[in-house]
């Protein structure tokens, strides 16, 4: 029974992993840039939601759109002013530009908010629903549902809206997209802002069960990379599968191994997947 319980917990946590990682894979898919600073936008999303909770009394789940908006705005500026300049530079310059952004955001939030741990209290924080012999944690369930809604909205946006189609066209062939009258620089800004916005959204919905501090993003970096590599770098659908898989792996490994080894299992899976199927479990299509 604890096995099924662990898988259930893993799926619920994994849904959130999917949403925070979709941003990473979206940016890569559209621009070919691996954003090492992506997890810092999770921190930003958490801080926004925390302040909204502390000063406006807003539930973190309701503050999630606000987190999205703030990160979207920051991402828009970061893409337009910084990343746009290295799009044709060697990939090492791209990697280390995003590492620089990571350092700035992490230490900027340390400077602004201090190093203390902040958490929220909500009415449903410790509640769980019992379904037969299984328990469903309410904060997990809410975070999962919000992530699901967000993922569906993104899917609709990418499939049905003009912007989504233009963005996919830019990802496939920027030169041809330009010939069709698409402003690719705008699409890049849109993709980056949307990507970091989604990650920030995920940051807000996990706030009821994760404590926020300036280094919190660092704990998610390798996890997010594992998710996107499992699903195939650049594949949004893959990130969903990868997110759920990582959630389940994490949850199951805590059944069999001491808690300190939880991430070790993840990293080993990560390296093995890279070695065996570098295009990801889902496939090469994006």
């Amino acid at each position: 029974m604890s096995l099924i319980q662990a898988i259930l917990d893993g799926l619920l946590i994994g849904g959130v992993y999917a949403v925070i990682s979709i941003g990473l894979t979206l940016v890569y898919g559209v621009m070919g840039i691996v954003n090492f600073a992506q997890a810092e936008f999770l921190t930003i999303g958490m801080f926004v939601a925390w302040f909204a909770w502390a000063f406006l009394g807003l539930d973190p789940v309701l503050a999630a759109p606000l987190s999205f908006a703030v990160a979207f705005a920051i991402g828009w500026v970061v893409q337009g002013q910084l990343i746009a300049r290295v799009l044709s530079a060697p990939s090492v310059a791209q990697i280390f530009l995003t590492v620089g952004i990571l350092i700035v955001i992490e230490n900027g939030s340390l400077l602004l908010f201090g190093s203390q741990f902040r958490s929220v209290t909500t009415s449903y924080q410790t509640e769980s629903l019992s379904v037969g012999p299984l328990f469903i944690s309410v904060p997990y369930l809410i975070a999962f549902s919000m992530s699901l809604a967000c993922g569906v909205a993104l899917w609709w946006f990418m499939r049905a809206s003009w912007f989504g189609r233009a963005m996919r066209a830019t990802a496939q062939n920027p030169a041809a997209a330009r010939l069709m009258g698409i402003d690719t620089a705008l699409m890049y800004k849109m993709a980056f802002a949307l990507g970091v916005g989604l990650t920030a959204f995920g940051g807000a919905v996990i706030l009821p069960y994760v404590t926020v501090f300036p280094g919190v993003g660092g704990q998610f970096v390798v996890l997010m990379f594992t998710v996107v590599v499992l699903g195939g770098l650049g594949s949004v659908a893959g990130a969903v599968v990868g997110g759920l898989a990582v959630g389940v792996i994490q949850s199951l490994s805590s059944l069999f191994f001491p808690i300190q080894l939880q991430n070790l299992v993840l990293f080993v899976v990560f390296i093995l997947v890279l070695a065996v199927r570098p295009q990801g479990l889902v496939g090469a299509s994006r």
Partner: protein
Amino acid sequence: MKGRIALGILIAAMALMPLLLDPRGYWIRVLAITLLFAAMAQAWNIVGGLANQISLGHAAFFGIGAYTSTVLLLKFGISPWLGMFAGGVLGGLAAFIIAIPTMRLQGHYFALATLAFGEVMRVIANVWTSLTGGPGGLSVPFTAPDFFAFSFKLLRPHAYIALAALVIVTAIFEGIRRSAMGYRLRAIRQNPAAAEVIGVDTTRVKLQAAVISGALTAMLGTLYAQVAVFFDPDTVFGIAGISIRIALIAILGGVGTAAGPILGAFFIIPLEEIMNDLLSSRAAGLSQLAFGVILIAVILWRPRGFITVFDQLWARWSRMRSP
């Protein structure tokens, strides 16, 4: 020619520096660390620069070197000089093991796989308490000053050992760069498929380069442990502190060149120290924030590294000399 002149001047200048600094002071320590990081970035350059395989996991080898010599010293009283070679063997072995699954990977995938490998080593070092002391870290015991025991009263000998290490690693890098192996590695960088077609055994060459780079990095880890005297898993296996910093030094200086890592190290490490000195008393995070801003500015200004500034100056100067 110009490279040789520049390198000669650099080495002479670096050899003078330990004499000018207060042997009990803070800056001689910074110098020793700078030289060690320059050497590490140079070892990284063998794989990262020549074959363009960007490793973000070199902390794995570095930490192996630091732990091997220190554990051998603590448990068996073996001199760190010998421990350094033991660490080199283990570092080379680790590089071999990680190279097998990651060798076929390119670009971002290779970077991410090596990043995860560094993290694996960090977790293992934290958990294997009986060997490593776990998160509490290890202290290098102090013994009576003796060259063969790698124990000195002041830091000046450490600075010279680090300088010697830098010269040796740079010589190895240059030797490889000019050898057939160097050409093979650059062929892989340009076009792996084409290199394979013209008969380069890409797997073998990459393995060789990875093992040399890993072994050298581990040996430098021993030297670092002797200077640092105390370390823990999160320091020597750190992503930001070691893996990314090593790669960053080579990249900011100029990847694939012998002078690049030296320029990069003498820019980054002292800059960080000065920032810490000036700013860390004011507010937590300020010095690192400033460091990040400078990093971003430098990358936007010189995406191919500082070395390009010197190339430009040299070109201008030669044009002026022979109109």
